[in-house]
């Protein structure tokens, strides 16, 4: 029984908890639902005559009960299209949005202001926001009705350097190979181009796909300048006439591509120069409408410690070109500022540019950071304006040893070394080696010629090695070469000996030369050469009888040298000559 009671109690407990949870969820939902918000939006701020824009009144977390009618506006028809609803539950929180849609269509060009109306939500009246719709003349008649380009500027009179947004819209029914529109902008600088989301619109009874582009441009010079045209090309798909004999023609549909080059009308711009009079001396080219905030920290520090000035300039204009004035304060050392831009729009024409400027007071006598100012030209007001900030008091104590280095915040992605450095490395005290600039070494003829030396050396050594190898494989040739050298050297020595009448040496050398040459020709050891060899071997080698006789005579002269040597130098030289003749003839004998 006790267990059953406990189970029943548990079941009841679970039911109670569930109920409480559900109640909490609903209650929490109802609490959120009770905070209603009403918002008014226009899908496009500029349309052509006959083209529709959609005005949406969104009511969030409330149940709209009634809405006032819009007052009649001449030239503009406002049609109620209906209500849609979105419900979302996020983390248990329920929120519901109801959207009242109105179609706006103008029959005449102009600027139309749709006034605020009251919407009653859960018994409370909420006003909407007034909105402005700009209606331009229809360009359809001047161009192809299925594809055309539209170029819009907010104003046609601007100043040199003033950045304005330009709208380019490509209207097309159905096409392929669409080229991105190119804006002809001679005399202008295109700073940025942003593609926007494709939409659809209806003009008359034609539904167009609209490809919008936004550009930020500025004029580079004064005068009457022509902006545009915008040019593009595409292949327009036109529905073909149906073939009556084709049973499926109406079912599938057939399209024919037709290439078209499009060009928008131009816009004549009047570019004014910036006024030369009343330009503040510190004006550095900033154009727009700006405000700023200036802060410095720390305010109490030692001399040599850094102060960071944070300057945030907010407004509309060319934020990228905004620069801080130069801070030439003798009591401070200033470093290059870092900057970053946070844009509120895709073109970067509205937003905030933030600077961080590090300054270092050089002495304890510094009492304040001097006043700073920034001048700009306001094109709407057509005058120069100056932002000023008064001096900021600081308390600077005398420096202590090892004061901190200024901290310079570096943009994202820099290396650590660059983050630490706050100035360039100081100049060099010595110029270093002076170099005559000229073509590099690889183009200097002398350098290239120098590289031929090892090449020639290698070629020389290779040829020499081949010769050595040839000689090593041919002992007869080797002997022939050696004997030639021996004979050449020997003949010189023989003449000398003859002139000096050194008889013993003369005759010994004479005999040796005969032996060497005959031994080489007859392929016999030189020591085996005697006079007998002349008769035995020489005739077989083709030697002439005159040669044999001459050689015999020379041998006999050598033999007689022991007993009756020829003594006079003239005779010795004659013998030398005869030997030379004999040896030359011997060398002519075939191998």
């Amino acid at each position, binding site marked *: 029984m006790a267990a059953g009671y406990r189970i029943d109690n548990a079941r009841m407990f679970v039911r109670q908890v569930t109920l409480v949870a559900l109640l909490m969820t609903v209650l929490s939902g109802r609490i959120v639902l009770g905070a209603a918000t009403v918002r008014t939006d226009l899908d496009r701020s500029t349309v052509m005559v006959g083209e529709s824009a959609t005005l949406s009144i969104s009511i969030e977390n409330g149940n709209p009960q009634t809405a006032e009618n819009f007052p009649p506006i001449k030239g503009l028809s406002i049609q109620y299209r209906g209500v849609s609803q979105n419900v979302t539950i996020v983390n248990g929180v329920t929120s519901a949005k109801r959207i009242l849609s109105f179609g706006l269509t103008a029959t005449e060009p102009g600027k139309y202001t749709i006034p605020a109306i009251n919407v009653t939500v859960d018994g409370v009246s909420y006003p909407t926001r007034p909105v402005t719709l700009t209606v331009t003349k229809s360009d359809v008649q001047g161009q192809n009705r299925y594809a055309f380009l539209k170029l819009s500027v907010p104003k046609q009179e601007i100043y040199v350097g003033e950045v304005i947004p330009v709208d380019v819209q490509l209207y097309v029914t159905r096409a392929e190979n669409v080229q991105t529109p190119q804006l*002809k*902008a*001679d005399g*202008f*600088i*295109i700073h940025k181009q942003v593609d926007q989301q494709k939409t659809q619109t209806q003009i008359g009874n034609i539904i167009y796909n609209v490809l919008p582009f936004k550009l930020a441009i500025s004029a*580079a010079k004064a005068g009457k300048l022509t902006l545009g045209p915008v040019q593009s090309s595409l292949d327009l798909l036109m529905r073909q006439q149906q073939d009556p004999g084709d049973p499926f023609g109406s079912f599938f549909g057939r399209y024919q591509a037709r290439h078209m080059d499009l060009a928008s009308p131009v816009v004549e711009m009047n570019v004014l120069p910036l006024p030369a009079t009343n330009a503040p001396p510190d004006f550095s080219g900033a154009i727009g409408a700006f405000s700023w905030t200036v802060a410095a920290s720390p305010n109490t520090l030692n001399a040599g410690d850094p102060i960071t000035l944070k300057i945030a300039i907010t407004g509309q204009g060319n934020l990228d070109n905004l620069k801080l004035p130069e801070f030439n304060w003798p009591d401070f050392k200033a470093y*290059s500022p870092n*900057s970053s831009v946070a844009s509120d729009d895709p073109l970067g024409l509205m937003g905030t540019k933030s600077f961080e400027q590090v300054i270092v007071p050089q002495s304890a006598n510094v009492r304040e950071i001097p006043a700073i100012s920034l001048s700009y030209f306001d094109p709407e007001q057509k005058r120069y304006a100056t932002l000023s900030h008064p001096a900021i008091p600081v308390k600077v104590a005398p420096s202590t040893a090892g004061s901190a280095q200024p901290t310079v915040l*570096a*943009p994202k992605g*820099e*290396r650590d*070394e*660059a983050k630490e*450095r706050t*100035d*360039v*490395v*100081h*100049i*060099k*005290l*010595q*110029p*270093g*080696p*002076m*170099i*005559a*600039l000229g073509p*590099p*070494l*690889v183009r200097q003829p002398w*350098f290239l010629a*120098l*590289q031929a*030396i*090892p*090449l020639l*050396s*290698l070629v*020389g*050594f*290779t040829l*020499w*090695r081949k010769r050595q190898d040839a000689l090593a494989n041919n002992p007869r040739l080797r002997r022939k070469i050696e004997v030639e050298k021996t004979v050449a050297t020997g003949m010189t020595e023989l003449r000398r000996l003859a002139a000096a009448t050194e008889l013993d040496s003369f005759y010994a050398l004479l005999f040796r030369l005969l032996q060497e040459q005959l031994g080489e020709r007859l392929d016999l050891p030189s020591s085996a050469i005697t006079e007998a060899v002349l008769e035995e071997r020489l005739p077989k080698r083709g030697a002439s009888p005159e040669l044999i006789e001459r050689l015999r005579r020379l041998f006999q002269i050598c033999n007689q040298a022991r007993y009756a040597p020829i003594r006079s130098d003239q005779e010795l030289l004659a013998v030398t000559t005869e030997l030379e003749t004999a040896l030359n003839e011997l060398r002519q004998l075939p191998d």
Partner: protein
Amino acid sequence: MSCDSSPINMRASGGSSFVLRLLGLYLAQCLLLVCAAESNFEQANRLYEQGKYSEAASIYESIIRAGRNSPGVFFNLGNAYFKSGEPGRAIYYYRRAAELAPRDEDVRANLRFARDKVSGSASVQPKAWQQAVDYFTLDEIAVGAAVFFWLWLGLLSILRWRPELRRTLRPWCSGTALLLSVAVLLLVLRSFSASERTAIIVAKQGIVHLGPLAESQAAFNVPEGTELKVEARRDNWVQVTDRSNRTGWIESAQLLEAGSPI
């Protein structure tokens, strides 16, 4: 090197030739030129220390125009322009210093510092292999390749002369051949890197047009100090490409090309 103004005594014995005298005169002239360059350099440094950066820059430029180029002169000229608020010319001269002394830490540091100050950073970035080969000058690589070339052919010549040393010398031959191949490859890459022309914007705001005419539509603009790749030239217009491959024409007066004279 001392640069006192005492004249050089030239020994001219009776038998000294005309050639010796000419050589002496030439050496004296070189010495005088170097001394003059050094005294100008010191004068420019003094002006720099006094904060007279433009005057210092003029003197550094006169040293360079006289043909006395050195990494130190280019480096100091870069500093003078940087301090004068001309980061474009500063980057140009830091680059010229880096060409002569690619491993000088001060030059690399200041070039990096100046480049970091250029906003927008449309500058073309050298590829990783280019940064590697630019560590050496072209002449250094050429000398290295020549040394290995001589070594290799010398070893081959020795092998021809003494074939019995083949076993001992073969690994040396192979090693030297490998080093030579690397050096030749570096030489080719470095030559290719040196042949790529870049230009540095020295105007406050460089306007790049679609065509080489003043009336051409402005395509984009680049801040001072941006480094662009040079594609072509026509009259006084230069076709350039930035980091995002945007191409256009800019007047040559708005830029300095790496390697162009002052």
